[in-house]
């Protein structure tokens, strides 16, 4: 490749990365296959050696993803999620506005600590079942869960893959700092989104307590949930043990800046502890088979590609281009926020974030940002943009795709246009909130 020169190397690697990116968007092949193929090509063409490619894989991220997958699967095996969702169903009393609020808030909270796809896999089928049983149109409720999973997931280091990537790869960013900087815009956005959706669909979520027939149907649905709840035999000791282990893991995350234990280690140790506690109820082989290995391979492939980009100096070039655009940090923060939001709405946000992390790292180390104490806001701009932007379209985030697929299997077809008409204002609201919040942080 020497004859092409250094910049030619960068152009070829950029072309390969864009090809992988487009391949992922077009979905003609599995995205894991595309990412791994891209990684193999850059190794084969000599842009990065095999050993360098392996070194480029961020095992802190892979370990955290693996640990969280195992932990979530353990909780699923002991049927905690089933129990929790039925409990939520009973809490709503069949009242549409309560169904909306209880499930939206629970989804947002759950997404902060579980991955978004797991959250919607638990919540969406139940909310479809509840709403259709009482003659409500489930669409508005499905949309609420999708938006809430993406917004709620933004609040923590483990809530959304972009945050896992950022939290694992950027030194100094802790579980606590994610909560400290992101919980405020997340809470504001959750409240605004819920108000906006209730206002827009007030006819559908209003209480029907003066309609006897309707109330009867909703009471019948509650009876069925109660029956399922009673049939689900989960002992108190199972609940206590699972809660204790989960709380221990959360304490581990909260204190990792003090203990200096990697989040990946905490998640893996939590999964191991859960397995030890429930060794009679959980089959290890079955559990390991449930891990989303293609996702882990997808991340590994991306890391190798990004490693090649770094190796040929492409990331330095990109960060140089960004610096040449502006030396105003606030402008740069807003550019990172909006560009990551727009890109996340249109394409998979993981490759974008994977590239942006080393770019922003280099940017932070270059003048004039190296001496700016507010330069860390760039990370929150990337996180808020990538996570909130996921709400922008039907393919913006995995939770959107999975929820729409679940809806389709139950006879509810959500079109791309319909999704945009519902999500556009909410995405704009959330990014405006994030812009104002980051601007406020910049000045104060």
């Amino acid at each position, binding site marked *: 490749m020497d004859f092409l020169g250094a910049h030619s190397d960068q152009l070829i690697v950029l072309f390969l990365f864009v090809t992988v990116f487009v391949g992922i968007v077009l979905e003609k092949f599995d995205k894991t296959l595309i990412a791994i193929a891209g990684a193999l090509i850059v190794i084969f063409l000599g842009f990065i050696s095999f050993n360098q490619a392996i070194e480029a894989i961020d095992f802190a991220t892979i370990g955290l993803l693996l640990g969280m997958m195992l932990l979530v699967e353990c909780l699923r095996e002991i049927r905690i999620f089933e129990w929790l969702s039925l409990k939520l169903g009973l809490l709503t009393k069949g009242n549409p506005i309560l169904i909306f609020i209880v499930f939206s808030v629970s989804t947002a909270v759950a997404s902060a600590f579980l991955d978004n796809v797991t959250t919607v896999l638990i919540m969406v089928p139940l909310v479809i079942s509840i709403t259709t*049983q009482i*003659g409500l149109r489930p669409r508005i409720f499905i949309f609420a869960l999708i938006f809430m999973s993406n917004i709620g997931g933004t609040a923590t280091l483990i809530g959304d893959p972009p945050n896992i990537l950022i939290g694992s790869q950027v030194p100094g960013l802790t579980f606590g700092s994610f909560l400290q900087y992101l919980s405020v815009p997340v809470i504001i956005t959750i409240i605004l989104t819920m108000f906006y959706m209730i206002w827009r669909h007030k006819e559908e979520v209003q209480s029907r*307590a003066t309609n006897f*027939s309707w*109330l009867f*149907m909703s*009471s019948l649905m509650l009876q*069925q949930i109660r*029956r399922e709840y009673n049939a689900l035999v989960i002992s108190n000791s199972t609940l206590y043990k699972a809660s204790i282990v989960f709380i221990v893991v959360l304490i581990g995350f909260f204190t990792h800046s003090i203990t200096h234990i990697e989040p990946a280690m905490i998640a893996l140790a939590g999964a191991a502890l859960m397995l030890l506690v429930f060794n009679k109820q959980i089959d290890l082989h079955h559990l390991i088979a449930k891990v989303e290995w293609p996702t882990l391979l997808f991340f590994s492939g991306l890391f190798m590609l990004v490693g090649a980009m770094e190796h040929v100096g492409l990331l330095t070039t990109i960060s140089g281009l960004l610096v040449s655009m502006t030396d105003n940090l606030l402008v740069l923060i807003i550019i990172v926020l909006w560009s990551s939001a727009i890109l996340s709405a249109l394409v998979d946000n993981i490759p974008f974030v994977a590239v942006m992390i080393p770019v922003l790292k280099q940017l932070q180390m270059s003048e004039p940002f190296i001496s700016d104490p507010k330069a860390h806001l760039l990370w929150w701009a990337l996180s808020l943009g990538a996570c909130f932007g996921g709400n922008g379209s039907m393919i913006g985030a995995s939770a959107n795709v999975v929820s729409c697929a679940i809806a389709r299997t139950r006879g509810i077809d959500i079109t791309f246009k319909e999704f945009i008409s519902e999500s556009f204002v909410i995405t704009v609201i959330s990014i405006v909130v994030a812009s104002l919040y980051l601007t406020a942080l910049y000045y104060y």
Partner: protein
Amino acid sequence: MESNLLHTLNKQLVELDRLNGASALAEDVAKAIDLTVEEYFGDRSREALLREVVKLYHTFLSCRPRMPHIISDLQKLAFYLYQNKDADTETLKRLIKTILIENEKRVDLIVSHATTLFHEKKTLLLHTLSMPIKGLLEQIAENRDNGDSATVVPDVYIADQSKSKSGQIIKLFDHLQLPFFVVSEFALAHVISKLNIAFFGGLTFNVRNEVILAPGSTSLISQLRMAQVPVYLCMGTNKFSFWDEETELAFHERRNKSLEHIEYAKEVFSHDVVEVDLFTRIITESGLLTPSELRRTFAEKQLEFYNHEREIEKIATDDVALSNVSRT
């Protein structure tokens, strides 16, 4: 009730009946009415409640397949509101509780009559699980645990049908620690010589002397009768269906299937229809009845039902009659 709500309710009832069985559904409906009365923020006067209960009664009459035991419960509520000028939400809720207790007692009575058939060792065939059959098995297990010789634990063959239905029976046997064998419902011929009693749970008995029960029952009962194995039906008399009309007796749908490259449609029926005379005895709350005794009981209940129906129809079709209710 608007047509889309009727459609939703109908779909929900069919689904709940399939999931939990007819008796459990009746219990859920009664409890749901109780909760509705409690949570209702509309007009709670007696005449308004009567109007709503009658509306609900007609909705259930419009559902297909009709669920006579639930309709009968609703008729009781409407008739009570119609007849009692002091009726209010509290007394209505008390009546609902009474209905629930009556339904429980009915099952208990059927169970106690059924246990008389297990004073000695039997080899029993089970195909479906109804509330009384579940109660019978629990009673046998309890007697065994207490060392009570009133019943002898039978050898049980479970005629395997759909995974969920057979699964329910197997789980119950496992829970009660009762021994069992499983045989495919289409391979009964291989074990039929060992059987000396068979139990089925019934959904409805109608004016055409037919019993509606789980799909697959007809062929099993025919085989059992040919082999002269006594066949018992467990069913309360609240499950009588008094309407004579040309509607399909079983919920029917066409499901698209594919086999490699071959696309085809499969006709799926929710129930089977069996002549009542094919049963040796029908175990009801009134005892072990012969088919002709069951027909007589049916005629008596039908008369009572239609007398009440006529009164309720007056309310439903005549607004003046409804407004007069408050002055009754």
